[in-house]
C-alpha cells in the first residue's frame, strides 16, 4: 500500500512544523524520515496516522485520500517512542486490544496473539504486565500490538529512541528482517543517520519542516543535494566554498596547485581508523580519516606541516531554494545542481 503526502502544511502557533511537504513512499518499502529534532518528521508521521490534522495538503494511502478520515478508520499500525503500553493490561490484553475492539472471537484472538508473541520473540510472557518487561521487550510488545490488526501501513516514531545502544542495534537488525518477512509498507522516524542507513531502503531527509532530499542511502551520501544533507548524512569538512568528507582528504608530502597547506594538530588513534586534526592557513580546522597503514606510510607527527588534497569535494551554489531537490523526486535522480570538483591527480 503506497503512501503519498501532497503539499502538507502544518503550524503550531508561530512554529511552522511542515512547510509544503510532499513525499512518495512506494508499496512494500521501508522508508526512514531522517532529520534533527524540530525538523517536522514526527509531525509528518503523525499526520499520516491522522493523529495530527494538516492545515492544508493531502494524505493518500493506497490511492485513497484519507485526509478527512479519523485515525481509527485509517488502518495504520503506530509505534510510539515511549511504547504507550496499556499499563493496566497484561501483554496478552495489550496485543489483543485491537482485535477485541474488532469483536474477534476469544479463541481467534488467543491464536493470533500467540502467533504474534512468537513473531516478536516474547513467547511465554503473555501474562506479564508492561512494568515487568524491559524497554526492548515493551517495544516489541507495542510492535506486536500494532501488527495484530494487520494494518495497511506501519508507522514507527523513533521506535528505538528510548533504548540503550546495544538493544538498539539488535532491534534494528530484527526490524529489517521482520519487514522482509511481513512486507508491510513501513515508515520510521529517526534522528540517527546510521540507524536510518542501516535499516531503511529509502531515506527522506527533513530540515526545518521541509524535505531536503530523498533517495537511497548511497544517493544521499554520494550526491547530497545541499550542504545540510551532506553534513547530516555523514561527516563533513569545509574547505573554502566546498565541502569534503574526511576520508576524501588525501595527505601528501609535496605541495602543488591542488593542495592546501595545513598543520597537523592532533593524531587520534581510534582502532583501525586514525583521525588527523589539522589547522588550515586561514585558521579553520578540518580533520582527515586515514587508515593505520596510511599513517605509517606518511610518518605524520603532531606539529608538522602537511599538504591536503581534497578528492570529491562538493560546492553548492548558495543556499538551496526551499524544497528544491528531493521533494517527490524519485530515488537516484537527485543531482540538485551541485558541481563536483575532482582534483586532478
Amino acid at each position, binding site marked *: 500500500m503506497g503512501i503519498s503526502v501532497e503539499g502538507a502544511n502544518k503550524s503550531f502557533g508561530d512554529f511552522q512544523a511542515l512547510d509544503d511537504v510532499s513525499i512518495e513512499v512506494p508499496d512494500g518499502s521501508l522508508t526512514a524520515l531522517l532529520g534533527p529534532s524540530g525538523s517536522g518528521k514526527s509531525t509528518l508521521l503523525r499526520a499520516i496516522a491522522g*493523529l495530527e490534522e494538516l492545515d492544508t495538503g493531502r494524505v493518500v494511502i493506497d490511492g485513497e485520500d484519507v485526509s478527512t478520515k479519523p485515525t481509527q478508520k485509517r*488502518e*495504520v499500525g503506530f509505534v510510539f517512542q515511549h511504547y504507550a503500553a*496499556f499499563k493496566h493490561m497484561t501483554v496478552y490484553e495489550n496485543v489483543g*486490544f485491537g482485535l477485541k475492539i*474488532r469483536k474477534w472471537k476469544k479463541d481467534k484472538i488467543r491464536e493470533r496473539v500467540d502467533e504474534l508473541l512468537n513473531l516478536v520473540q516474547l513467547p511465554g510472557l503473555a501474562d506479564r504486565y508492561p512494568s515487568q518487561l524491559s524497554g526492548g521487550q515493551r517495544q516489541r510488545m*507495542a510492535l506486536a500490538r*500494532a501488527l495484530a490488526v494487520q494494518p495497511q501501513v506501519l508507522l514507527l516514531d523513533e521506535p528505538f529512541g528510548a533504548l540503550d545502544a546495544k538493544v538498539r542495534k539488535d532491534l534494528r537488525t530484527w526490524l529489517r528482517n521482520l519487514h522482509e518477512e511481513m512486507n508491510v509498507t513501513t515508515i520510521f522516524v529517526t534522528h540517527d543517520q546510521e540507524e536510518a542507513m542501516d535499516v531503511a531502503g529509502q531515506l527522506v531527509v527533513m530540515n526545518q519542516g521541509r524535505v531536503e532530499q530523498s533517495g537511497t542511502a548511497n544517493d544521499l551520501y554520494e550526491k547530497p543535494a545541499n550542504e545540510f544533507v551532506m553534513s547530516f548524512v555523514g561527516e563533513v569538512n569545509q574547505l573554502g566554498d566546498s565541502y569534503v568528507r574526511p576520508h576524501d582528504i588525501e595527505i601528501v608530502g609535496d605541495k602543488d596547485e591542488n593542495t592546501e597547506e595545513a598543520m597537523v594538530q592532533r593524531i587520534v588513534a581510534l582502532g583501525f581508523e586514525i583521525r588527523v586534526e589539522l589547522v588550515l592557513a586561514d585558521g579553520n580546522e578540518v580533520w582527515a580519516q586515514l587508515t593505520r597503514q596510511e599513517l605509517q606510510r606518511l610518518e605524520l607527527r603532531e606539529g608538522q606541516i602537511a599538504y591536503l588534497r581534497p578528492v570529491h569535494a562538493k560546492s553548492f551554489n548558495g543556499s538551496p531554494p526551499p524544497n528544491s531537490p528531493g521533494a517527490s523526486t524519485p530515488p537516484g535522480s537527485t543531482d540538485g545542481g551541485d558541481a563536483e570538483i575532482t582534483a586532478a591527480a
Partner: protein
Amino acid sequence: MNSSVNDNRTSRWGLRVLGLGYIAVLLVAPLILLFYKTFEEGLAPPWEAITSSDGLHALKLTLLTVVIAVPLNTVFGVICSLLLVRHKWKGNWVIDAVINLPFAISPVVIGLSLFLLYGKQGWFEPGLAEAGIKILFSTPGIILACIFVSVPFVVRETVPVLQEIGTEQEQAAETLGANGWQTFWRVTLPAIRWGVAYGVVLCTARVLGEFGAVSVVSGNISGETQTLPLFVEKNYENFNLPGAFGAAVLLALLALVVLMAMNLLKRKEAS
C-alpha cells in the same frame, strides 16, 4: 562519628515524640474521650438514641444524601477533569478557579447563597413554587448543599493523574481502531481509576459530615430534614448527651470506614 550517630538518634526520637504527641493530644484524646463518654453507662442509652425514629431517620437521610451527591459529583468530576486536561481552551482557568470556590468559601455562606436562590423572593422561587417543588427545608435542598460543598474533590484528585498518564495510550488505542467512547472506558478510565476512587472517598467523607451549609437550608426539623451531624447538634443543645454521643460515634465510625477504604486504595495503588 559516634556522637553524630547519637545526635541523629536523639533528633529522630525528638521529632517522633513531637509528631505523635501532637496527634495524641489534639486528635486521638478527644476521640477516645468521646467513645468513653458514650459508653460510660453501657451500650443501651446510645443505642436507644440512635434507633429512635428521629435517629434512624437522620441516618437514612445522611446515607441518601451520600448516595445521590457522590455519584453525581463523580461523573461531573471526571467529565470536568477531561475538559480541563484534554481540551485546552483559553477559558479553562476560569473553570479551574470556580471549581475551587467551595474549598475557599465557608459552608455557611454557601448555605445562605442557596437560600437566596431558592428561598422566598429567590430567583428560582416563582417557577419552582408553580411546579410544586420544594427545595428549602426539604431533602432536595440538603442534597444541593452537599453537592455544592463536595464538588472539588474528584476533580482535584483526577486532574493530576490525567496529566501524568499523558495522551499516548489514548492515541495508541485510536490507532488500534477504538472510538472515543471505547478509548475512555478501556484505556483512560482504568488508567485514572485510583485517582478517581481517592476523590470519591474524600467526597463521601465530606458529604457525611457536612454541617454548616446543610444547617442553613434544611431548617433542622427532627424526623424530617435532620441529617446525622444536625441530629448530634440538636441532642447536644437539648442536653440529651447519650443521644448526641451515640450519633457522634456512629458518624465517626462511618468516617473511619471511609478512611480505611482510602488507605486500602492507597496500598493497592502503590502495588
